[in-house]
């Protein structure tokens, strides 16, 4: 395969174009996919509550604890 200027131009005008378009569509779809809203909201809010310890592998929920 000859790596000429023409070869690169052809590649970028064919595959490159559709690759970029495809990725843009895929990312926009992912970012605005309605059913993912809950996950994103949870992620956005996740940093606001406490940050001072790693999660513990226990089934006890926070509200079940005697005190914070």
């Amino acid at each position: 395969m000859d790596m000429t200027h023409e070869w690169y131009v052809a590649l970028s005008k064919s595959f490159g174009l559709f690759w970029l378009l495809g990725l843009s569509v895929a990312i926009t779809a992912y970012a605005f996919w309605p059913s993912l809203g809950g996950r994103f909201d949870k992620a956005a809010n996740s940093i606001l509550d406490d940050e001072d310890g790693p999660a513990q592998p226990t089934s006890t929920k926070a509200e079940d604890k005697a005190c914070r």
Partner: protein
Amino acid sequence: MMSNLTSTERARAMLITGAGVLIGLTMAAVGRNDPMGAHGWIVLLFCGVLFFIVGQKLYDAEPVEDRSVSYYDDPTKIGILLALFWAVVAMGMGVWVASQLAWPDLRFDAAWSSFGRIRPVHTSGVIFGFGGNALIATSFHIMQRTSRARMPDQVSPWFVLLGFNLFCVVAASGYLIGITQSKEYAEPEWYADLWLVIVWVVYFVLYIRTLARRNEPHIYVANWYYLSFILVVAILHVVNNLAIPASFSGAKSYSAFSGVQDAMVQWWYGHNAVAFFLTTGFLGMLYYFLPKRAGRPIYSYRLSILSFWGIVFFYIWVGSHHLHYTALPQWVQTLGVTFSVMLLVPSWASAGNALMTLNGAWHKVRDDATLRFMMVAAVFYGLSTFEGSFMAIRPVNALSHYTDWTVGHVHSGAMGWVAMITFGSIYALTPVLWRRETMYSWKAVEWHFWLALSGTVIYVFAMWNSGITQGLMWRTYTESGTLRFSFVDTLIAMHPYYIARAFGGLLFFTGACICFWNVVMTIRRVPHHTPAIDYPTTSEAMEPAVPAAE
């Protein structure tokens, strides 16, 4: 801090630093007839000191703490202090460099203090020393918190942090003794570059290992930004520094590229250093600390994802706008212009997202200088990305290029955006990290804020005026078609702006010194405080994406 390491970890740390001593000794021996030999001694000293610090504690008692109930914050703490140390050193250098331009006698006739040598100490010092340490430290903090998982081990974070600082020391000392490969922001020679690759790969692996242990199903967007910073900087660094050493006993090397290819690779690296070192990493900081400090979730999480991919896709193409009107093919220049203009969209999406997050928390911005730092950072981010897109357009660039306008643009980004968000994050982080009630002096934070803001504004306006004056004088012709002004005429016209610039920088530097003092006093004087929320979380979302095996 050593007492938190197990004896195995201490032994491993001694092995690594011991190997470093040997490498330093080898460099000093084979490079004895070359400036590289001096670097050998620096490496030997750096690693030797660490070797003895660890060695002294090798047989101390084993740690008793339960590692599953806390995050590993020791490297973060040292990283913050190192960042502030570098800030003071490198911004001080900046004031000196700026003063040399106004009063050239301040060189004091030494070789090491010439402009060409201390200027990279300033640039590398603020970008890598201050910015890099702040990025590493905050990324350690954020990756653990957002994953709700502790780092997988305790040696590799130290290796990353201290190894990176060894690179910074080798870089800065090399400039002063005249070692440089003359690539902007990539001045260090081949052995320093190789070392940084090792450090950076360990950093990347550490980050991925921490994320693999996460207890949150979704990876918070700040981590995406940090990861893009780590990954892309690795690629940029490796490609731009491809070089053949002239010999293994000397510092000199020859780049794998030449001519316009060399220029293009350099500015592909150079502009993406701005993008992935000075933007995406700091956006990671912004997306974590700004919502946290404001007490409100980010305005639109979806927009943050979209702008992430927009920034990543567009930025990588824009480097050629540094080479307008050069031997670079016209279409490559046009490509750079196009992507630079498109880049405005995701950049403003990020800035807007940050400012919209503050909607409803403006009273906090008014009262809290820490949050105000972050707000001003978002504003300057918006301003300097607009300016950048504008300056990338070829006819605008014809006026701005090679003038002080470029310097003004860089500093509106570096001081107004990067340093402001970093200082805001440091003030938010310090009490949390050291478990203190508050910062030592809120008044000092206010002073710092106003010094930093006025310093930035004075600096940027001085450089705008100077740059546009300079650019216009260069292109003024007489009726007979000759240049109207000589080079010295432009220097005389720029002199008052150079004095103003040095003064603005001095204000900014004073602010950084106050910050360092305030952080140290917070650690030493402010009473210890166990936060009410200082307990291991039972995350609502206990659905580990990857089983937390360890």
